[in-house]
C-alpha cells in the first residue's frame, strides 16, 4: 500500500493549476452477516481513495481513483487539470481556505486498520446466541461491521488536515420460526468490547414475548411512543432536506412564502432541540468539511472548513440551515453552517419503561423503514413501522399490533412531541452511516395512513 501523505504532497508539487485540493482516504473494514442462526456473507477489505480537484480560472476539474500507483500520479494530475477545459466558471467559486502548510503531528503516522480480530469475542458470543435461539424457536438475522477510515486533506493554499474515523455497529433481528413475530435491536460500537449482546438478546426475547398476543388496529391518528431509532431516522431525513439555498429558493418546507427561509420561527414543540457537533463525546466525527463535488449542501471551495456545533433547532425554534460559504456570502446570512455527519437530540427525561408506565393509550414503535418523501412542500414522508408495534393501555403492554404505513412530516412530528425521554447513542435503521444520540419521544396525532400485513 502506498503512503498517502507523501502522495498528497507530490500531487500538490506537480500541480500547474491556480489551486489544487487533494483528498486521501484509507479505509479498513471487516463485516459479517447472518440469517436463520447461521452466518451468510462476510468480508475483509482495505481500500484507498485519492481525489484531485484542480481549479483553473474558477473552473473545477475533479477526478477520483481508488488505484493510483506512483508512476500514474503525474497523469492523474494532468487529467484533473484537463477536466477544467471547456467548463464554465463555478458559481460557488471562493478563495480556498488558507493554512500555513504545517502538517499536524500525526500527519505521516501509519493509519489505523481493523482486522478480523475485532470480532473475536463477539463471534463467540453470537454463536452462543444462535444456539440459545435455535433451542427456543427463535431465528436471528443481522449484521456486524467495523470500519476505520483515515482522511487526509492537503491544499495548495497551505491546509493540512488529518482525521481518523472509527465506526461500527451490530444489528440483530429476532423472528419466531414462522416469521410471524419480529423484533429488532441495534447498538453502535467502535471497539466491539463495549457491546451488550445479552441486553440486546433480552430485548428481542421480551418483544417476541409481548408479541404472543397479536392485536389488529385500524389506520388513524394515534399517540405514539417512538423508540430512539425511529426518531433518529425522521430527524436525519429532516437534516438532509435542510439546505439553506433550497429553502431560500422557495422549494422546501423551510421556505418562507414570498422569499427567504423560516429561521427564527417556532416550528416544533418547545421540548425539541436538534444539533450536530463533531466534538460530541462518544460521537466524534470529522471536524472539517470534505467535498468532492458542490451542491446546495456543500462546496468544493469549503474543503477544510472547521466545523463546530450547529444548533438546527433549539426549544422548537428553527435556528440554522446548512449553508455553504458561497451561499452565506451571496445572501448575507451569518455563516457558513457546514454539514456535520452526526446528530443529537438532547433529552434527560424518563426511561422508556417509565414512559410506558405513565401511558393511558398509545402505540410503541420500534423502528421505521422505507422512508421516502411524498411532498416536499410539507416534507411529508411516508414509511412503515417495522419489527415491533405494541399497544400500551393503562401503563401496560397489551400485545403486538399490525404494522402501519404512516404519512407524516418530521416537522409536524417534532411539533407534536409531548414528552422527551432520555437521549442515548442510537443505531439508525434507514440511514446507515450516521452517528446519533436520540431519546424516545411521545408524539400525539401521529398519522398511520394504512395497514401493512408485513410481519
Amino acid at each position, binding site marked *: 500500500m502506498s503512503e498517502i501523505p507523501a502522495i498528497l504532497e507530490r500531487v500538490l508539487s506537480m500541480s500547474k493549476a491556480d489551486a489544487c485540493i487533494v483528498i486521501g482516504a484509507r479505509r479498513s*473494514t471487516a463485516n459479517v*452477516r447472518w*440469517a*436463520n*442462526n*447461521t*452466518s*451468510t*456473507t*462476510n*468480508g*475483509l*477489505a*482495505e*481500500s484507498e481513495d485519492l481525489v484531485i480537484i484542480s481549479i483553473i480560472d474558477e473552473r473545477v476539474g*475533479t*477526478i*477520483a481513483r*481508488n*488505484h493510483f500507483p506512483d508512476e500514474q500520479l503525474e497523469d492523474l494530475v494532468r487529467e484533473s487539470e484537463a*477536466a477544467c477545459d*471547456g*467548463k464554465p466558471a*463555478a*458559481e460557488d467559486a471562493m478563495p480556498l481556505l488558507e493554512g500555513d502548510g504545517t502538517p499536524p503531528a500525526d500527519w505521516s503516522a501509519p493509519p489505523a486498520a481493523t482486522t*478480523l480480530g475485532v*470480532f473475536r469475542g463477539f463471534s463467540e458470543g*453470537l454463536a452462543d446466541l*444462535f444456539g440459545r435461539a435455535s433451542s427456543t424457536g427463535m*431465528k436471528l438475522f443481522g*449484521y456486524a461491521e467495523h470500519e476505520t477510515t483515515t482522511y487526509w486533506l492537503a491544499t495548495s493554499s497551505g491546509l493540512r488536515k488529518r482525521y481518523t474515523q472509527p465506526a461500527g455497529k451490530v*444489528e*440483530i433481528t429476532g*423472528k419466531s420460526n414462522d*416469521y410471524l413475530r*419480529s423484533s429488532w435491536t441495534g447498538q453502535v460500537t467502535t471497539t466491539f468490547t463495549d457491546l451488550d449482546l445479552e441486553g440486546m438478546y433480552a430485548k428481542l426475547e421480551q418483544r417476541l414475548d409481548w408479541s404472543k398476543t397479536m392485536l389488529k388496529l385500524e389506520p388513524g391518528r394515534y399517540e405514539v411512543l417512538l423508540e430512539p431509532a425511529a426518531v433518529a431516522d425522521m430527524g436525519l431525513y429532516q437534516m438532509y432536506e435542510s439546505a439553506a439555498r433550497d429553502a431560500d429558493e422557495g*422549494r422546501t418546507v423551510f*421556505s418562507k*412564502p*414570498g422569499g427567504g427561509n423560516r429561521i427564527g420561527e417556532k416550528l416544533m414543540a418547545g421540548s425539541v432541540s436538534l444539533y450536530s457537533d463533531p466534538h460530541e463525546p462518544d460521537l466524534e466525527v470529522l471536524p472539517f468539511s470534505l467535498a*468532492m*463535488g*458542490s451542491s446546495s449542501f456543500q462546496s*468544493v471551495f469549503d474543503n477544510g472548513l472547521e466545523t463546530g456545533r450547529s444548533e438546527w433547532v433549539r426549544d422548537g425554534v428553527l435556528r440554522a440551515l446548512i449553508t455553504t460559504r458561497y451561499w452565506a456570502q451571496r445572501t448575507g446570512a451569518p455563516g457558513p453552517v457546514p454539514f456535520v455527519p452526526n446528530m443529537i437530540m438532547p433529552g434527560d427525561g424518563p426511561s422508556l419503561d417509565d414512559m410506558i408506565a405513565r401511558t393511558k393509550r398509545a402505540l410503541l414503535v420500534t423502528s421505521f*423503514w*422505507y422512508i421516502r418523501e*411524498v*411532498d416536499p412542500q*410539507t416534507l*411529508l414522508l*411516508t414509511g412503515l413501522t417495522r419489527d415491533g408495534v405494541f399497544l400500551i393501555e393503562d401503563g401496560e403492554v397489551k400485545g403486538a399490533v399490525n*404494522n402501519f*404505513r404512516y*404519512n407524516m412530516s418530521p416537522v409536524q412530528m417534532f411539533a407534536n412531541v409531548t414528552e422527551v425521554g432520555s437521549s442515548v447513542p442510537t443505531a439508525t435503521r434507514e440511514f446507515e452511516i450516521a452517528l446519533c444520540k436520540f431519546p424516545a419521544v411521545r408524539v400525539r396525532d401521529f*398519522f398511520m395512513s*394504512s*395497514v*401493512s*400485513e408485513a*410481519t
Partner: protein
Amino acid sequence: MTSSNAARLDPAFTALPYEQLGDAALQRARDLGATYADFRFELIAGQTIATRDRELEAVTNTETTGYAVRLIHKGAWGFASGVDFTPDAAAATAARAIEVAATFAALNSEPVELAEEQAHTGTWISRYEIDPFQVDDAEKIDFLLGLAETALGSGKVQHMMARLMQVKECKYFAGMDGSRIAQQRVRLQSDFQAVRIDPSTGAFESMTPAAPPVGRGWEYCASQYPFARHAEEIPELLEEKMASPSVEPGRYDLVIHPTNLWLTIHESIGHSTELDRVLGYEANYAGTSFATLDKLNTLQFGSPVMNVTGDRVAEHGLSTVGFDDEGVEAQTWDIIRDGVLVGYQLNRQMALKQGFGRSNGCAFADEPGHVPLQRMPNVSLLPSETDITLEDLIGGVEDGIYIVGNNSWSIDMQRYNFQFTGQKFFRIRGGKIDGQLKDVAYQAKTTDFWNSMEAVGGPSTYVLGGAFNCGKGQPGQIAPVSHGAPAALFRGVNILNTSKEAGR
C-alpha cells in the same frame, strides 16, 4: 460467446494484468484447500454532471479498480479483496479469503454448496453506439444547460436541475473450474426537474420527464430520447398542474403509463420474487417476501392477463450481461404466468439448496470490494399480443386517472403495502383525458393491485424503464436494473390526497 457489437473492450482495461492475477489467486486458493474459488477483476468508470438553473454545479469523474477472491473452504464462504496488481498480492488475497472462511466456519451450520454450471470462456460487450466517455464534457454540459435554458426561458418555471450520469463497467471473471470471461457494459441516465413556485402563497410543484435510464451510449441524449421536447412542454404542463384541482380521495380506475408502472413492478414483483429475501437472508435489512416457496405455482399474484419474465438478455437493459458474477450464462425465464407465481430469481447456492437445478444467473456485485449477492434481473411485464393502444385503455375508463412518470415510492419489508406518486396525473372522464389533477398517490396491497389489472397494452405502449440505484444488502450495494412494461388498466385502486395526508 462473442457479441455482434462493433465496440471493443476498453484498452485501458485490457492493459491491466487481470489474467495473471487471477491465475495466481486461483492457484493459491487451490493449494490452500478451497473446494470452490472465483476471481473477479473490475474497472468501473463513472461520470456525473449536474447543472443548477443556468450554472454548472458539479462534474465528478471516478474510477474504481480492484479485484476479489471468493471461495469455499471448510464449507464456509471466504471473501477478500485487493487493489495491489501483483501476482503475489493476488495470491495473498486468496490466502486472506481462506483465513476469513476459517474464522467464520464456526458460525456456519450448513456447508455451502453450489449448483453446477459449465465453465465458460469468451467476451461479451453491451450494445451501444457512442462511448459517452469519448464525448467532450463541454458537449454534455451544453446539452444540460440547453435544456435548462429552454425551460427557464419559458418564464413559467423558476428552477431547473439537470443531471447526466454515465458508467462503463469492465469485468473479468475467472473460476477454478476454468471459466475465463471478459465483459464490458455502458449505461447512461439523464433527467431534469423543473420547479414552479407561486411566490405569493409559497406553493410549489415540480415535474420531470422521468426519462428511463438505459444501457446505451451518448446517442441516447444526442438523438434518441426527446429531452428537448420535454423541456419545452413541461413548463406549460407544470403551470396547468399547479392550477389543477386537488384530487378527491377514493377509489378510481387507473391507466398507468410504463414510465410510472416500471417502479411498481420493481418494488412489488421484482423484490418479492428475490429468493434470498424469501429465505430470510435480507430479513435484517431489505426485508423478506410474502411470495414464499409454498406458494410457488399456486399463488394468484395477479389477473390472468399478467405475464412477467426475468431476464438478463434484454437489449439495452440495465441488468443485461453475458454472464453473471458467478459465471452463469444469461437467461430468460418466467416469474409470473397467467397471473400465477411460477419462478424466482436465483444464484448458484440457492438454486441447488432449494432444488431449482441450474441458477438463472442473478448474482451481481456492485464493486470489486463487495460480495456478489442475488440481485435483480430485468423483470418485465409482457404486453398483450394484440395491439391494444393507450387510447383503447383510456377509452375503457368512465371516471378515472391516467398516471405518467415515477416519483415517490415506498413499500413494506414483506412487499405487501405500497404507496406511489407520479409526475403527471390526468383526469379521465367518459373515456377521454380531461385536464390534470394534483396531490395524487395510489396505495394498495401488491396482490390486490395486480389482480385488479384488467388489461395490458400492446407492444406500441411498451417502454423499458428502470433505475441505476436499486439498494440491497449489508454492507449496502446498488444495482442497475430495467423493467419493461406496457401501459395497463387497473380497476378500483385506492387514491390518497397527499395534501390531506399531511393534515392540511
